[in-house]
C-alpha cells in the first residue's frame, strides 16, 4: 500500500505541476476584464501539489507492509481488464456489435466454461438487443464494422 500511495502521490504532483505550468503559460493574473484563464487552474494546481506532498510524507513515514493487491487476487482482476481492453481495441476494426458478441462469447467460454450452445445464444442475443435498442429504437448509432456495411447499415 505504501508504494502505491507514494506512486499515486508522485503522479498527482507531476500532474499538478503540469497544470501549474500550463496555467502560467496562459496567464494567472488579472486580464482586461477579469481573471485570466489560468487563474483558477493555477491555484487548484498549487493546492494539489501541496496536499499531495502531505500525503506522500504521511505515506513515507508509515511502515505499511500490506501489499496493494493480495497475492493471487491480481489474476481475476487482469482476467477482466485484459479482455475488456481487447474488446475496446477490437471495436475500432469490427464495430461494437460484433465486438460485443466475440467478447461475450470468449468470456463465457474461457472463464465460465459454458456450453457452446449457451455461449452462442447469449452473446448473439446481447448484440442483437443492443442493436435494436440503440440503432433502431433510440437512433443512437454505435461504431460499425465490415459486417454492418455488408448488411447495409
Amino acid at each position, binding site marked *: *500500500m505504501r508504494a502505491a500511495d507514494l506512486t499515486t502521490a508522485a503522479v498527482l504532483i507531476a500532474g499538478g505541476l503540469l497544470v501549474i505550468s500550463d*496555467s502560467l503559460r496562459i496567464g494567472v493574473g488579472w486580464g482586461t476584464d477579469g481573471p485570466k484563464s489560468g487563474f483558477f487552474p493555477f491555484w*487548484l494546481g498549487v493546492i494539489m501539489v501541496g496536499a499531495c506532498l502531505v500525503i506522500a510524507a504521511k505515506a513515507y513515514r508509515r511502515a505499511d507492509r500490506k501489499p496493494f493487491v493480495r497475492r493471487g487476487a491480481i489474476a481475476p482482476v487482469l482476467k477482466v481488464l485484459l479482455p475488456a481492453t481487447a474488446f*475496446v481495441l477490437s471495436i475500432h476494426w469490427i464495430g461494437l456489435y460484433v465486438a460485443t458478441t466475440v467478447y461475450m462469447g470468449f468470456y*463465457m467460454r474461457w472463464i465460465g466454461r459454458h456450453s457452446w450452445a449457451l455461449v452462442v445464444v447469449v452473446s448473439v442475443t446481447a448484440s442483437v438487443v443492443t442493436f435494436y435498442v440503440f440503432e433502431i429504437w433510440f*437512433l443512437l448509432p454505435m461504431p460499425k464494422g465490415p459486417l454492418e456495411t455488408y448488411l447495409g447499415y
Partner: protein
Amino acid sequence: MGFENLLVGFEVALQPNNLLLAVIGVALGTIVGVLPGLGGANGVAILLPLTFSMQPTSAIILLTSLYWGALFGGAITSILFNIPGEPWSVATTFDGFPMARNGRGGQALTAAFTSSFVGALFSVVLITLFAPLLAEVALKFGPPEFFAIQLLTFSSFVGLGGGSPIKSLVSILIGFVMAGVGLDIVTGTLRMTFGFTDLMKGFDFIVAVIGLFGIGEILLTMEEGLAFKGASAKMKPRVVWDTWRILPRYWRTFVRSCFIGFWMGFKPGGATPASFMSYSFAKRFSKHPESFGQGDIEGVVAPETAAHAAGGASLLPMITLGIPGSPTAAVMLGGLIIWGLQPGPMLFKEKPEFVWGLIASMYTGNVIGVIMVLAFVPLFAAILRVPFAILTPLIVSVCAVGAYSVNSRMIDIWYMLIFGVIGYAFKKLDYPLAPLVLALVLGDLAENALRQSLIMSQGSLLIFLERPISGAINAVALFFFALPVITPWWRRLRGVPVPAASPRET
C-alpha cells in the same frame, strides 16, 4: 401556497406515458441496484443519452424513478446475499442477512421496502414544503453566494466525509482540474490540452461516472471474489401483511430515522453516515440491544428509513440551488443542462411544470417502487443467480455503449476504461470518488461564480466575507475544512481516544 402547484405536478406525473416511464425506471433501477458494479449513479449515466430526445419532464421522471429503484434494489442484495449493493446498505446487512438465513427473508425484505418507502416519503413531503421557500431565498443569491454554497458542498466532503480528509481534498481538485480541460468559454483560450485535439472537448462527466463507478466497481468485485450464496426469497402476501401489522410498533425508530436521514442527507455524502448513525441510535434506545446483529427487525428498519430519507433529501439542493448532494443527483443535474434547462432557483419560476412534475413523480415513483419490489422480489433476486461469466462481460459492454452514446466518440470508451482503472486504484487507496464526480460536474459553474464575484469586487477576495449570506456560508465552509485539523487536537485536549474511521460513501 405550493399545493395548487403540486396538483399541477400530479397532473403531469399521472399522465399515462409518464406513469409508464416511472414503471420502466423503477424496474431498470432495481436491476441496476441489484447488479454488482452498477449503482444508481451509473444507471442514470448510461440511460442519460437515451433521454436527449425526450421531453425534459418525462426524462427526469424516468431518471428519478431509476434512482428510487436502485435504492430499493440495494436492499435486496444486502438482505438475501449479504452483499451491500450500495455503501448505505451496509448497515442493513447487519440484521437483514441473519433474518434471511433464519428463514425470515420475506419479513426482512418487507420491513426494508416499507421503511425505505416511509423514509423517502418523509423527505418528499419536506421537499414539497421547503423547496419553494428555499428557492425563493436563493433567488436573491448572486455569484458570491453560489460560490459560497459550492465551497460548503465540498468542505462537507472534507470535514464530514469520513476517511482521509486530505485525500478527499485531492479528489475534489482532480475533478475541478479535469472540468477545466479544454476550451475556456469565457475567454476562448485552450487550457491544459497540450496540443492534443482530443482533449479540446474536455472530459465528459458521464463517461467518468461510468468508468469510475461501473468498471472500477467490477474490478474491485472481481478482486474480492464473487460468491453469491444467497438465502431464498419467498414473498407470500400473508408474510407482507403480518410484517405490516408489527411495524407500527417501531414508530419511534421510524420518526427518529427519518429526521436523522433528512438532516444528514441534504448535505453531500450523507446517506451512508445517516444509515450507520440511525442503526446505532436504534440499538442504544432499544430495550433489548443484545438482539441487534442477530436478526432484529428494528435493525433493518432504522438504517433503511434513514438511507432513503437521506437519498430523497439529496435531491433538495439539486432542484432548489442547482447543487447536487450525491453523484446520482450530479448526473441528473448534468442531464438538466443537456436538456436545455438552467438548474437553480429560477427553475421554479420559469419551468414550474417541470419542477412540480418532478416533485409529484417522487410520490408516484415511490408508490410504484414499493409495490413493484414487493411483487417481484424473487424475479429481481434471480438476476444475481445468473453466472458471473455472463454478467461481467454484459456489464462491461453496456458501460461501453453508454460511454460511446454520450458524444459518439470512440475516445470516450478508452477514457471509460482508464477511469475504471483509476477508480479501482483510488477506491483501494481511500481517495473518495463522489467528490471527484461532483467537482467535475460543478467545475464550470464554480469557476464562473468565482470569476463573476471577482469581477464584481475588482479582484478582491473580501467580497466573499463582506456580503452577509455569503460570509456566513463561507464561515461554515471554512470551519468544515478546518475540522480534520481541529478534531484530533480537541480530542487530545479532552483525552478522548480517536475512534476508528467510519465507512465512507463512494
